[in-house]
């Protein structure tokens, strides 16, 4: 494994950008389906966090482990999740990976290394660590596991216990903190007192990396370095990216509590727009080509949404209502 990471190429950048664009358009669709009452529960978007998220997913290989969190649509797509399964899960389609039993961001395909988050924040860190631990026991080499968390999530006991245990085992784990300045409505000043979340790295004995979450190139470079470090045996890597959530906590929330000064600051930049400008400036694509990209993803998203909306919902009569895999251990209750 090279100690210094290979440079991010134009092709890498464009590939990442196009996934970001797909993610953004897909999420806009999710928001509109939510407003139309077609998605129940909630919709939680990653607007403004696509550069960071895609940089995580894009550096993982088949065979790696990824446990994305709330705002990781871009990273999920980069890791191999599809528009189809995203829509199926949000709409609760029978054919989706969660078969309507769970929804929205709580989706994955654990057998493919794509873990399905539970809501309880921090919980995926030890789970990915355990997955990596198992791979090591099985003799697999060169595997990486990555998982994301928010500034708020760093306050959970699970974050602490999981990262510490991973550090003790020197597992190839990458923990990415999307420091988007708020946990729901709670600003960082009410969430932690350290000068920078990166200051936590030394306390766990893990390598720390800082990224500008609004800058795709910086995110790609940082994640490439972190993932390669982990893959090369450098133990857990803690990546802290500063950015701003450019949307409410969920689509039910207008996020009006967000400090206008933050919005006006560099943190408030939209990584997608910034990356688009970069591409145009660098003349890696023309405005026309870019328009084609956008049309392509819009077509994909819209046609997939139409398809999924015609798919059958889960049928309660068909469901086996089984929480256990072994049929002989399922309980019978004298209840209706």
């Amino acid at each position: 494994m090279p100690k210094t990471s290979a440079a991010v190429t134009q092709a890498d950048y464009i590939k990442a950008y196009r996934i970001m664009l797909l993610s953004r358009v897909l999420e806009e669709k999710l928001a509109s389906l939510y407003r139309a009452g077609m998605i129940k529960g909630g919709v939680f978007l990653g607007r403004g966090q696509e550069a960071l998220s895609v940089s995580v997913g894009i550096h993982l290989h088949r065979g790696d482990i990824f446990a994305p969190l709330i705002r990781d649509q871009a990273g999920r797509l980069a890791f191999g999740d599809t528009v189809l399964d995203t829509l199926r899960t949000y709409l609760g389609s029978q054919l989706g990976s969660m078969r309507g039993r769970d929804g929205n961001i709580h989706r994955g395909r654990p057998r493919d290394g794509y873990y399905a988050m539970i809501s309880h924040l921090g919980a995926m860190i030890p789970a990915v660590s355990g997955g990596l631990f198992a791979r090591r026991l099985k003799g697999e080499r060169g595997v990486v596991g990555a998982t994301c968390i928010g500034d708020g999530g760093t306050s959970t006991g699970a974050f602490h216990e999981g990262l510490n245990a991973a550090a003790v085992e020197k597992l190839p784990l990458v923990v990415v903190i999307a420091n988007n300045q708020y946990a729901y409505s709670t600003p960082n000043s009410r969430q932690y007192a350290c000068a920078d979340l990166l200051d936590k790295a030394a306390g766990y004995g893990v390598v720390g990396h800082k990224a500008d979450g609004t800058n795709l190139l910086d995110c790609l470079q940082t994640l490439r370095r972190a993932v390669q470090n982990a893959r090369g045996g450098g133990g857990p890597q803690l990546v802290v990216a500063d950015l701003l959530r450019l949307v409410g906590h969920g689509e039910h929330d207008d996020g009006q509590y967000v400090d206008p000064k933050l919005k006006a600051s560099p943190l408030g930049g939209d990584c997608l727009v910034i990356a688009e400008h970069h591409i145009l400036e660098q003349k890696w694509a023309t405005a026309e080509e870019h328009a084609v990209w956008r049309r392509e993803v819009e077509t994909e998203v819209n046609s997939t949404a139409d398809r999924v909306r015609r798919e059958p919902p889960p049928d309660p009569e068909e469901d086996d209502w089984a929480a256990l895999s072994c049929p002989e251990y399922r309980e019978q209750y004298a209840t209706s």
Partner: protein
Amino acid sequence: MITYLEAIRLAQQKALATDPRVFLYGQDIASFGGAFKATKNLSKEFPGRVFDATLSEDAIVGMAIGAAIEGMRPIVEMQFADFSTCGLNQIVNHAATLYYRTGVPCPIVVRLPSGGTSGGGPFHSQSMEALYAHYPGLVVVTPATVEDAYTMLFDAVALDDPVIFCEHKFLYNHLKAESLPETSLPIGKARLARTGRDATIVTHGAMLHESLAAATELAEEGFELEIVDLRSVKPLDTDTILASVARTGRLLCVSEEWPWGGVTSEVIARVSAEGFGLLDVAPMRVNAKDTPVPYHPDLWSVHRPTASTIAAAARRLLLS
């Protein structure tokens, strides 16, 4: 009209206004007013009494316990009941044991936005009353009406012991009342929500309303169901239940929780043990299915009991 949710807000407002020992602590409850707006405007109205907490349920409850030891009356909001598993250790092993071990009571109230709603899914829908009721040292209440949401929360704050306040999210904006009562039944007393001679339904929380609807359906068929709203599941008002079963001879227990060891099994166990002779036929129960709470609305509405499944069970009970 006052909603169930607004009643919870008003009870906290009254507690803050009348008792300087009261303060509120929880995620996003200060200027934001809470995920459900149960503390809306309270931080403005009571400066320095309503605090946003870190994303740390264990620390939230632990802090509340320490504050209670020092004579305060914290009301803690969990963002969803489901996340209280992360603070469960402090609740069941610290708050609940404090009085027994040290003689110092632990007057905290932990508000749990509980129960299922459409699209809530496995981690935003749980009913955790049985979990907490199993542990000694806790009072566990499950208000089912606007009036109870108001008076029981206020009463819970006045109580010297830790109270797990299971408020039902489905009822938040669904239930409305003209006005709020000044007094009511004390915590620990159940209420006859409907009188009837043919069978007794014992229930609580959102299931009260499904049961009432089932009773209306059955009334059209000529059966009169009596309905006991437990109000608090620990202590459990066995006397009121037994008195009703003595009148009807038939018992149906209905709860949105999972069946194993839930309120329905505790109620049936008590009636069977203490009122065996009152039962004309086998008691029955209707619970949620024994799986996580599903996300899709169609699955969810079959997972939990509804007026129609309750009515169906009641019919079987009445004909048995």
